[in-house]
């Protein structure tokens, strides 16, 4: 028995086909790379297969049975996700490819219609490239100014610095709910309240929070929230932008084409209602349906239990990894403020070499800048190795990581 915080990990592991495979002959997979993308439970794969095998049709415009079934399943998935994040209406849930596209949509549709040269946008030093580059592009196009909240040595946002930056009268604060490198969980509700008091709207990059904890979009006080299915047991190619209805209604569409229109003339068009206004062309129908199933799977376990389980694991992992001589772990030492991510370096060994040797033991970790070059630069690092955890990991996985790390250390001594 392998029960942790009310979750039977042995049972969960069996739900994931990938966790049954061997990486090399006789070497089973120890998957510690969920922060990059999660594995998928059979229930999600079955839902994909069922849709494509028996209900596949284009949505919204069809009258025949398959089209009605596909539309119902697609829209049902939207409702399911809306309720999962506490959205007031499913009209606020826009299906896009991923977190990245969602942030770009806000930068384009909201940014280009609401901002002018000299307006300020606040980001932070711990942002993923997805929450930096769209604003760089906007800044180049419009002359918008970017302010960046400092991150301190322990990996927390410098809230005093944030409050100072708010004095400049920003129009938008866009920050990550949880860092994909440091694991830091930011005080997003406080950030939102302060931003709103200063007259700014708030975009939250929730790519790493929605998969791992209960997130209620209204409770955290955000105006936009973005996340990706593939990091939370769902397929690739599908993600969500949630936005406050009044704001979504107030901004122009982004991509043009089928489905996002009410009427089209030869030289003009009238946009459709929410959420379709922002969904141009044939959407990722099968993937949206699979996403709904993933949310149902996570809900079945319980987001609070998932969070508690990961807390236990990351605490254990930090203790054990710290005992490996030469290791430095980045991010908060208090696991209460961090999710299930442990980025580290090992003296004298490049993270690529760490990942490579770990792979020979079946332990899958990431090595690199994890799409957070500015953060790595801040800590004068070229790269880190990163182990991350999910519902299907247990202490044995952590032990496998640590054993393999010891091997790395001896090899490179």
């Amino acid at each position: 028995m392998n029960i942790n915080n009310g979750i039977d990990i042995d049972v969960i592991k069996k739900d994931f086909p990938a966790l049954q495979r061997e990486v090399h002959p006789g070497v089973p997979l120890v998957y510690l790379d969920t922060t990059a993308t999660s594995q998928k439970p059979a229930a999600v794969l079955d839902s994909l297969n069922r849709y494509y095998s028996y209900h596949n049709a284009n949505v919204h415009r069809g009258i025949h049975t398959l089209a009605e079934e596909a539309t119902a399943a697609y829209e049902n998935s939207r409702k399911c996700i809306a309720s999962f994040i506490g959205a007031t209406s499913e009209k606020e849930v826009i299906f896009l490819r991923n977190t990245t596209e969602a942030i770009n949509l806000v930068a384009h549709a909201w940014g280009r219609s609401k901002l002018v040269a000299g307006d300020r946008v606040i980001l932070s030093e711990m942002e993923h490239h997805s929450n930096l580059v769209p604003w760089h592009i906007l800044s180049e196009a419009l002359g918008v100014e970017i302010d960046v909240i400092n991150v301190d040595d322990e990996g927390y946002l410098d809230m005093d610095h944030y409050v100072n930056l708010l004095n400049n009268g920003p129009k938008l604060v866009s920050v990550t709910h949880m860092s994909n490198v440091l694991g830091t969980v930011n005080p997003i509700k406080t950030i939102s309240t302060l931003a709103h008091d200063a007259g700014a709207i708030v975009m939250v990059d929730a790519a790493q929070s929605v998969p791992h904890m209960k997130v209620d979009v209204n409770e955290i006080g955000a105006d936009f929230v973005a996340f990706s299915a593939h990091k939370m047991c769902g397929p690739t190619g599908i993600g969500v932008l949630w936005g406050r209805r009044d704001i979504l209604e107030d901004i122009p569409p982004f991509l043009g084409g089928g489905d996002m229109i009410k009427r089209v003339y030869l030289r003009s068009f009238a946009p459709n209602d929410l959420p379709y206004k922002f969904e141009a062309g044939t959407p990722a129908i099968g993937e949206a349906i699979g996403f709904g199933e993933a949310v149902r799977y996570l809900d079945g376990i319980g987001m609070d239990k998932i969070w508690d389980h990961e807390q236990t694991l990351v605490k254990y992992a930090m203790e054990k990894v710290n005992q490996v001589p030469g290791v430095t772990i980045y991010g908060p030492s208090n696991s209460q403020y961090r999710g299930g991510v442990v980025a580290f370096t090992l003296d004298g060994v490049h993270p690529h070499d760490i990942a490579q040797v770990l792979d020979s033991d079946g332990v899958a970790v990431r090595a690199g800048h994890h799409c957070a070059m500015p953060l790595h630069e801040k800590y004068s690092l070229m790269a880190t190795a990163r182990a991350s955890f999910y519902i299907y990991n247990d202490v044995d996985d952590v032990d496998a990581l640590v054993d393999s790390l010891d091997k790395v250390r001896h090899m490179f001594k």
Partner: protein
Amino acid sequence: MDDMYREVILDHYKNPRHNGELDPADISYQDDNPLCGDMIRIDLRVDKDNKIIECAFSGHGCAISQASASMLMEDIKGKTLDDIKDYTRDDILEMLGIELGPVRLKCAMLSLKVLKVGAYGVQEWVED
């Protein structure tokens, strides 16, 4: 199919009741469903107690949209504008006596939408 196009629906489609326009009318409103081009206009005459003493619909579209308009006209004659507030999706579906998928539902509801928005303005109409 026999379900979908019951005799009564086809009858209302082929022989629409209260079909035409009223001139003058106390209330006139029209709207369409851009997805399929269904169009419905409704004209009402009401007395001082807001009772509907005459009503008519015009427009074009599929059997479901036209039949439901025709049935709705028969039903509201003699009712008050206040009564109209209570009409719901289910009332229309009951008149039609069939179940409908999401696309056809829009066809069926068009006349109710036109009626309600005409009588009370856009606020009254909640799509679902």
